[in-house]
C-alpha cells in the first residue's frame, strides 16, 4: 500500500499525517483530523456539501486526493468562529433561518464567505451564481439568500 506523509495547514494549524495515496482531502479532514464539520454529500463533486477553501480557492474536497493538498493551506467551517464568536456569515445563517437540517450549511457558509470576500455587496443574482455549486434539499434557498444579503449588510455596519 502506497503511503506518504501529507503536511498541510488547516485553519492556520500545521498537521502531518501518514495517509494512503487513495484517500480524498475530505477523508483526510474528517477521518484523520477529526474535522467533521465538512460533510460528505454525493462524493461526486455535484452537491458542494464538502466545500472547503484550498490555497485560496473554493473547491469540492471529495474529488481531491489528500496528496494533492500536500504543502497546501486549507480553510474549513471550523476555522470561521473565533474565541467562541460566530463569523458574521454564520451569525446571519442562524438569524435568518437559513439552516434546517444543517447538512448543506457548512458548504453553503464557505461558499458564501468566499463570495463576500470577493464581492462585499453582491446582488441576488451574484449570490445565486456563487452558490450554484451548493445544493439544499430543505430550505428552498430563499432564506439562504436572505442570510447572505444580511451578512453583507452587517459588514457595512462595521
Amino acid at each position, binding site marked *: 500500500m502506497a503511503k506518504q506523509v501529507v503536511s498541510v495547514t488547516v485553519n492556520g494549524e500545521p498537521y502531518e499525517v501518514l495517509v494512503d495515496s487513495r484517500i*480524498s482531502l475530505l477523508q483526510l479532514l474528517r477521518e484523520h483530523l477529526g474535522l467533521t464539520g465538512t460533510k460528505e454529500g454525493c462524493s461526486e463533486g455535484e452537491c*458542494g456539501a464538502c466545500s472547503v477553501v484550498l490555497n485560496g*480557492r473554493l473547491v*469540492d474536497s471529495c*474529488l*481531491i486526493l489528500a*496528496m494533492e493538498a500536500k504543502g497546501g493551506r486549507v480553510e474549513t467551517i471550523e476555522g470561521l468562529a473565533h474565541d467562541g464568536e460566530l463569523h458574521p456569515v454564520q451569525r446571519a445563517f442562524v438569524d435568518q433561518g437559513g439552516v434546517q437540517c444543517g447538512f448543506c450549511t457548512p458548504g453553503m457558509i464557505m461558499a458564501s464567505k468566499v463570495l463576500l470576500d470577493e464581492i462585499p455587496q453582491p446582488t441576488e443574482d451574484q449570490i445565486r451564481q456563487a452558490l450554484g*455549486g451548493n445544493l439544499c434539499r430543505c430550505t428552498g434557498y430563499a432564506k439562504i439568500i436572505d442570510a447572505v444579503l444580511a451578512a453583507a449588510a452587517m459588514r457595512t455596519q462595521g
Partner: protein
Amino acid sequence: MKDFEYLEPTSLQQALEWLNTYRGRVRVLAGGTDLFLRLKKHVFTPDYVIDLKRAPGLDYLASEGQGGVRIGPTALQGDVARSPLVQRSFPALAEAARWVGSIQTRNRATVVGNLCNASPAADTAPALLAYGAQVKLASLQGERTIPLTDFFVGPGRTALQDNELVAEVVIPAPAPQTGGAFFRRTRTAMDIAVVCAAAVLNLTNGTCQEARIALGAVGPTPLRAPRAEQALRGQAPTEQLIEEASRLAAEEARPIDDVRSTAEYRREMVQVLTRRGLTQALERARAR
C-alpha cells in the same frame, strides 16, 4: 480505488520521463474532476499517477501573436472564463468555460483535461474547434502539433499515444472582424450538456470570409458542420442564409437517444442553437 503511487514531477520534462517509463500503467492528473471518479470506479487502474500541478508554471494563459492565446496543461477552467485576454479574443470559449460544473469544479478542472477526457459533450471543445485550436502533444521522443479536429477519435478516446500528454493548446489570433458565440442546452447548470454549439465567423467587407460551426453532444465526438460552414463561406450573411446553414448543421449532427435526451430533440436544438450562435457571432463580428 486500486492502490497507486502518487508522483510529483518538478517539470514537464520529468513528467514525460515517467510517462515513458511507466507507459500503459500511468495516468496524468491535472484537475482530477474527471480522473478521480474514474479511479474510484475502477475505470482506470494505474499503478502510478503523475500530478502535473506539481510542475510549476504550466497553468498559464499566455498571449500569442496579435490576440492569440496559448493555454497551458494545468490552466483552470475558472481562469479561462475570467481571463480578459480570452474574453476579448475568444468570447465563445470564455462562455463555454463558465458552463463547466460549479465554481468549485472550475477552480480545479482544466481545459486540457476537458479535452483529454474527450466526452462528446465536452463544454470547451466546440468553441476551441470553431476557433481553429491546435493541440501540442509531447512525449520523451519529441512534440507534434495537430489540429483539434484530429484530436478526438471516438467517445472518450483521443489521438494521444500512451506515453504522450497534451503540453499546450494554441488558438491563433483571430482575423480582424471575427465574432464567436456559444450556446448550450442542459437540464440544470451542473448537468452534462444535452446539446451545445459554437459558431465563429469573420467578415471582410460585409461578406462572410470564414465560418466555423462546431457541435457537442450530438455525435461520438465533438464535431464540425462542414456543409453548414460551406453555405456561409464567401456569402453575405443574411437571416435567410443563417437559417439555411442552421438547417444543414442539424442534418450533419449525429445525435443518439440517451438518458439526458432524444436524438430528435437534439437534432431540433442543433438548428436552434446554430441559428442563435451564428446570429450572435455576426453581431459581434460587426461590432469589431
